[in-house]
């Protein structure tokens, strides 16, 4: 190294180089992903976000790119998300890659169908089994609560065993009482929404 080069000379050289590099690298700011916090989600589905870094401004109108077509989400404030710029264009920020997001709702929209193929589909934690068309149902049993009912005979009914002798119930006379089925009555679900299948 030339001994005539002083620290001041080298520092100026390095500073000059630093200025050039910094000017070039600043272009790259729009090609970087920025961890950000959701301030609020507006009614049109876009986000207002505040990046952690001060190099990029807080922004509104940030579109969500979920990576799955036909899916819309609503998130709660303080959700964490990465923000990038489409094609490095400062006019086109977008949000994707969620971290610690608090999901408020999710909506799937398909032109033809939505298929979930898995041995178990759980819609609520520890939920109950869901009945389908063709599944068996059982009604009644010793523990069943008596069901009030009214029977109107269409033909004469002879009642025996009365202390005063047999007597006849005339057709059309309503008989009011309660029914308790001592054993379950079995049947099957015969209909359901044809567009919801499991």
């Amino acid at each position, binding site marked *: 190294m030339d001994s005539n080069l002083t620290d001041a000379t080298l520092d100026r050289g390095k500073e000059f180089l630093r200025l050039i590099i910094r*000017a070039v690298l*600043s272009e790259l700011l729009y090609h970087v992903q920025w961890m950000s916090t959701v301030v609020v989600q507006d009614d049109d589905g876009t986000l207002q976000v505040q990046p952690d870094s*001060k190099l*990029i*401004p807080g*922004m*509104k109108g940030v579109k969500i790119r979920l990576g799955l077509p036909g899916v819309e989400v609503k998130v709660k404030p303080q959700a964490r998300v990465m923000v990038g*710029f489409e094609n490095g264009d*400062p*006019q086109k920020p977008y949000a994707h890659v969620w971290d610690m997001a608090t999901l408020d709702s999710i909506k799937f929209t398909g032109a033809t169908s939505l298929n979930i193929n898995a041995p178990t589909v759980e819609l609520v934690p520890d939920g109950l089994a869901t009945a389908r068309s063709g599944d068996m149902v059982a009604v009644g049993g010793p523990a069943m609560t008596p069901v009030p009912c009214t029977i109107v005979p269409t033909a004469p009914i002879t009642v025996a065993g009365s202390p005063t002798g047999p007597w006849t119930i005339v057709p059309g006379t309503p008989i009011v009482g309660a029914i308790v089925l001592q054993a379950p009555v079995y049947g099957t679900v015969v209909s359901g929404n044809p567009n919801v299948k499991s």
Partner: protein
Amino acid sequence: MFASLNGIVLLEGRISVPRCGAWHADLSIDGTSVPTGTLSLVVGSQTFSCTALARPATYAGTSYLRVVGGKGGLPKQVPAQQFVGTDGKTIVSQTLSAVGESLSSTSSLGMGVDSWNRAAGQASTALSKFANAAGLSWRVLVDGTVWVGSETWPNAGLNPSSYIQSDNFPSEAFIEIALEDPTLLPGTLFLNRRVSMVVHDVGSDGSRTKVWFEGDS
């Protein structure tokens, strides 16, 4: 030809004026007292408004300094900012005023802008980014203001008797002329070619101007 910097005799000077960006000049002036603040570099009929960039050097009764067109604010940092539902003029003028520079009234920036996210960084970088996105050019004018707009390539209007062409390098799109008054500027048509950059050399043995043309010109 008499040339001066704030009235101080200019011994030698090289004024580099690009089509895009800020012009600058390397000067040597008589004496050891160097003016500060906004400076007026007078050469011929032109008055270049500029600012000294760094501490000048002095040697043997002569001072050497570099000046830049405008107020020297373009290398300064601007903070990140989002602009929503505004226009190009607002974005550019706010960026410039944040670093002490001014927008030329001859700029053409009327386009509406739905959203623009300015990253933090040098004002010149922010300006370039916006201009590129809008398909515009920008440069510092002789009067020190910043012009942003579309090139219209007006004729330079040089009287043929006012210059003598001394060199021509077609492969480099470059010529040299002897021109006393540095009125030839980039962004104009000269000899039916688009001027990309000019460098005016001013000295005791006269003035010469190097002219580079656009590559496709």
